[in-house]
């Protein structure tokens, strides 16, 4: 293969991998709340925004990027915990009301951030400038760090769910809520913790993406639509589905971004996702078994 082509292929792959890892982190919280608890949380995108603003805020008062990145999941968790406690726990049996209420919260959060921090995009500087020579191509070093952190986080979540007793609790509550109550698991608390946890991971994703993205109060909605499609396309209820959905949405977006304008690419990806849902209603990952 020609060196130029090789360079192009590797760069495209790494760009796709960056997007895929972000989508996986954002989608994880939705897979928990939407896929497993059956709560349609339209304020999920704002957890990403809050994470990105946390990094901006810490940097603006003189802190380092890494301190900001540590604050991002905490900020996401705090907002998520308040949301669950104040609103979502009262609406578990009213799905349409949940949609309306969480959308209201998302508008309130967006406008609240705008009133607090003012109009316009917020600058966030990456911790590392420069590129890394990867033999085939040169690639921004920060993006490689982002991919690594995202993958490690995902690995940690998988271990948490499959190996710890809290993970066992979550899996039990998801499989059969009444049975879980019966064996003495506090399902409300489990839901609350799982929801907060998903919000924290989305906040982390926002912090990671902040140096690459345009940090705006309204940035969340783009991640929201994509993350929902990750969950729906991939199939609900498994890490495998999450990975499959992220690869579908993230991969297609990255490849299309070379050919056409980003907003058109976004539109085509969402259309492709709608078609994919029609062809495989149970998700890409579950298609074979059902």
């Amino acid at each position, binding site marked *: 293969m020609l060196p130029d082509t090789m360079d192009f292929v590797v760069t495209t792959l790494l760009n796709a991998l960056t997007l895929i890892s972000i989508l996986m982190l954002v989608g994880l919280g939705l897979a928990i709340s*939407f896929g497993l608890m*059956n709560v*349609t949380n*339209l304020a999920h995108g704002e957890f990403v925004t809050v994470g990105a603003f946390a990094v901006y805020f810490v940097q603006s008062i003189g802190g380092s990027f890494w301190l900001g990145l540590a604050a991002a999941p905490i900020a996401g968790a705090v907002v998520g915990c308040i949301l669950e406690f104040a*609103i979502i726990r*009262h*609406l578990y049996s*009213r*799905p*349409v*009301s949940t*949609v*309306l*209420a969480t*959308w*209201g*919260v*998302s*508008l*309130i959060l*967006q*406008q*609240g951030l*705008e*009133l607090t921090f003012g109009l316009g995009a917020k600058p966030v500087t990456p911790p590392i400038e420069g590129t890394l020579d990867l033999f085939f191509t040169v690639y921004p070093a920060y993006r490689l760090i982002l991919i690594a952190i995202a993958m490690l986080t995902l690995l940690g979540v998988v271990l948490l769910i499959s190996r710890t007793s809290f993970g066992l609790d979550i899996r039990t509550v998801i499989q059969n809520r009444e049975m879980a109550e019966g064996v003495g698991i506090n399902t409300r608390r489990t839901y609350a913790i799982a929801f907060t946890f998903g919000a924290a991971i989305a906040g982390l994703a926002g912090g990671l993406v902040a140096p690459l993205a345009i940090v705006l109060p309204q940035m969340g*909605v*783009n991640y*929201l*639509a994509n993350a*929902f*499609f990750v969950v*729906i396309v991939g199939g609900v209820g498994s890490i495998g589905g999450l990975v499959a959905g992220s690869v579908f949405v993230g991969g297609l977006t990255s490849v299309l971004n070379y050919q056409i*304008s980003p*907003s*058109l690419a*976004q*539109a085509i990806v*969402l*259309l492709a*996702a*709608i*078609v994919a*849902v*029609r*062809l495989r*209603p149970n998700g890409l990952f579950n298609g074979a078994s059902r």
Partner: protein
Amino acid sequence: MIARDRNWLLIFAVCAALAVIYPLFADGYQLTVIRDALIFGLFAASLDFFWGRTGILCFGHAAFFGIGGYIMALITLNDAIPFGSLLGIMGAVAGAAFVAAIIGYFLFFGGIRGSYFTIVTLAMGVICQQAAVSWSSVTGGDSGLIGIPPIAFDVGGMHVDLSQDLPSYIFVTAIVAVVVLALWSISRGRWGTVLTAIQDNEVRAAALGHNAPLRLLVTFVLSAAIAGLAGALYVCMAGLVAPDLSGLLLSTEVIVWVAVGGRGTLLGPVLGAIAIQRAQQTISSFNPSLWPLLLGCVFVIIVFVLPDGILSIYARLKSLFKGRRQAR
């Protein structure tokens, strides 16, 4: 049921009478304000026809409004096309219905319902807005298209020209009244009964021989067609079309109009649209960025305090007094 029908028709008649005598008391500017509010009321009624009857929330209804608006603008701005206004309205209705038919086919026959449907339609609104922004050679990009002429056509030797305030007000009021009445008679008849059955239990309705996906699809397409009509009317009255008209914020607002006015009443959403737009204009004149904040609060308040809309206050008061009388 019959008593409720009579109540509904009574309220409808009162509203229609108020709309007819309003021009006697209002100046030209006030007429145009109410006229535009009525167009959005028609849009709200179109969403209510689908959401109120099926219980499935469409979160991208502004997509159809915007599609109708853009088609109307493109046809009337092209001098080569004769009968621009009439063809534009027909094209807008057909275009919105066509898009709804395609998307609805994939969703309803794919078994997508409930929250899944809401999310896909939310993305549909995002898609439409971004397509309008990025396809700038046709849609004018971010700034949209301007200079759309007012509706004018000839019917049976009669020349209709809606460039003046009063004729356009009468035209819009008549259309809204006819459409709302038509939607009401559809939804209280057999069609509406079957939809209610599907909403209650789709599997059971299908077992009784109803083709549930087809019913939902046709209802969705009809709803989208009326949204397209509202969009076409709006851009002619406003003289411009912009990507915002298919965007998320408008989709959000129309949901609030329906939810505040009372879902499933068709007339409530129209009144809700008019009332909230007046409130919006007042509030936005203080501080434009305050409005989305209040909109968000309204969502939360509706869910917790008024799940059946403002009209339910009356029903609640009535049952409260009834309860007291019986207690005595």
